């Protein structure tokens, strides 16, 4: 048996469709007979792109009225499943809302979830998970019957258009959510960013605790700018409040796959590596020759970031 029908939850952040949604649609189209998208908000503006990536239909639960997507989307899907139109599998992104929807749906339909998926077998029935910083691959699968819920990490598959026409839009009713739906978003705050997005940039320059203090993060920002890249960070300095969370690379942060990743003052914890290990080229600057990051670096500089980075920045500025 392979997968006949798959639902792909199309993650949106604000009005934008998250790029991971197209990755999941592409994979679903590749391995399943029928692909339908599920989302929230107005879907008419995205039906063509979702269709081009392989979905024949896009179902929306409509305006959330300030509520969070988790309870509403999960309840609408569960209602469809209860009514007898269960898919073989449901693909969700390993994102804030993706995990919320998957968790709620799992409890509702009494099916477990496989999270942190990085690859699927050709028949779509077995999963791969990168563990221990990506040094080992764990293979898993569902037992029992009912839809398989897969929460998949970004950048696991390449998005590709398959030439389908616009997906047919319709609305899925949301059953009464009761108290479970009571959370309300009162306001949204976006951080100001310039330059390419972290998960799309060809060059990523990341800083870690080895920078010593918050002010030294400027070295990372300056270097990223000179290389037309995006600045990233380890969780250590996000937790310390030096940089906003949106800069975090790793297990709980963004997955990046740039042409070059430059890790500065980052030790190379497993949870960091799992987010950047697939970069085509890795450069690391660390004063400790034993730092694990060197084990995956193409070019490792054993040195002080506070010396090497200013010299590098100055030399690049001179080149103009």
């Amino acid at each position: 048996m392979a997968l006949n029908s798959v639902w792909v939850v199309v993650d949106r952040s604000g009005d934008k469709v998250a790029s991971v949604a197209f990755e999941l649609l592409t994979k679903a189209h590749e391995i399943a007979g029928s692909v339908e998208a599920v989302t929230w908000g107005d879907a008419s503006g995205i039906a063509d792109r979702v269709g081009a990536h392989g979905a024949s239909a896009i179902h929306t639960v409509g305006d959330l009225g300030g509520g969070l997507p988790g309870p509403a989307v999960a309840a609408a899907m569960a209602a469809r499943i209860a009514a007898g139109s269960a898919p073989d599998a449901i693909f969700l992104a390993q994102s804030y809302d993706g995990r919320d929807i998957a968790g709620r749906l799992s409890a509702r339909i009494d099916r477990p979830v496989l999270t942190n998926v990085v690859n699927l077998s050709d028949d779509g029935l077995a999963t791969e998970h990168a563990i221990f910083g990506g040094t080992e691959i764990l293979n898993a699968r569902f037992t029992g019957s009912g839809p398989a819920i897969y929460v998949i990490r970004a950048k696991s598959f390449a998005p590709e258009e398959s030439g389908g026409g616009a997906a047919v839009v319709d609305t899925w009713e949301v059953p009464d959510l009761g108290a479970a739906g009571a959370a309300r978003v009162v306001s949204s705050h976006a951080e100001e960013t310039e330059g390419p997005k972290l998960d799309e940039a060809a060059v990523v320059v990341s800083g870690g605790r080895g920078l010593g203090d918050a002010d030294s993060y400027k070295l990372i920002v300056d270097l990223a700018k000179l290389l037309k890249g995006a600045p990233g960070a380890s969780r250590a300095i996000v937790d310390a409040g030096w940089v906003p969370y949106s800069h975090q690379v790793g297990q709980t942060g963004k997955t990046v796959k740039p042409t070059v990743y430059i890790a500065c003052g980052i030790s190379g914890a497993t949870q960091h590596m799992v987010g950047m290990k697939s970069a085509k080229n890795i450069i690391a600057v660390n004063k400790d020759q034993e730092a694990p990051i060197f084990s995956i670096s193409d070019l490792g500089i054993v040195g002080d970031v506070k010396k090497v980075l200013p010299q590098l920045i100055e030399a690049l500025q001179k080149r103009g």
Partner: protein
Amino acid sequence: MDFMNVVVCVKQIPDGDQSTYKLDPTSHNLVRDGKLILDDSDSYGVEMGLQLAEQAGGGEVTLVSMAPNSETSGLRTALAMGAARAILVSDAALAGSDALSTAKVLAAAIKRAGPDLVITATESSDGYTGTIPVQIAELLGMPSVTFSKKVTVNGDKVTVERQTEEGYDEVEVPLPAVISVTAGVVEPRYPSFKGIMAAKGKPVEELKVADLGLDAASVGAAGAGQEITSVVPAEARKAGEIVVDEGDAYQQIINYLEQLKVI
């Protein structure tokens, strides 16, 4: 609210990290036989719970944990920080539980404590599925806010700053509710000597699956709806050139970037 009853879920995990964890060669499950410690990720939840109870004008923190072998060392750490009591679910029938079964057990245990607020971490250090908090919320019929980086109590609701791709959303949620907090939200206190001594006398209620009214066949390896089939080494990335900086290593980086045509 003048007395806030906070439940904090705390996972007790093997000491060490992903580089020292061991998988059982046949089940491929993480070996959790030795002494367990409080998951560092949960120390933020404990601290947050203690602070919010205080902010609410009074309250208590009850810990809830599911762990093998009646393990309490991690719980004692959290009790020493200031939690009032703990509920521990420990039962051989729970070995091999998946995240959903774990959530069922935790939800049943939490219910007994009648919480106004349930706090978890966003993800555990050893399992990191990150779905248990929402699964618990759904099972309890409560609203949830995940990825909370700031939480304030406002009468009978809490206001949360929830991380988003772009920044954060301010979310209001009426109590009772489940929130998952990120690392770094608050600075976990170190248990004082007095706290450590006091923790020894604090009540830890130990429960079995049957005490929770759950069917043993629905949890543990028997109830798990997923299995690990194998664990294989990933394609290794070879370490490249290592250069010790003598004052001109920056030039090596430039050469490398030129070679890649990045500059």
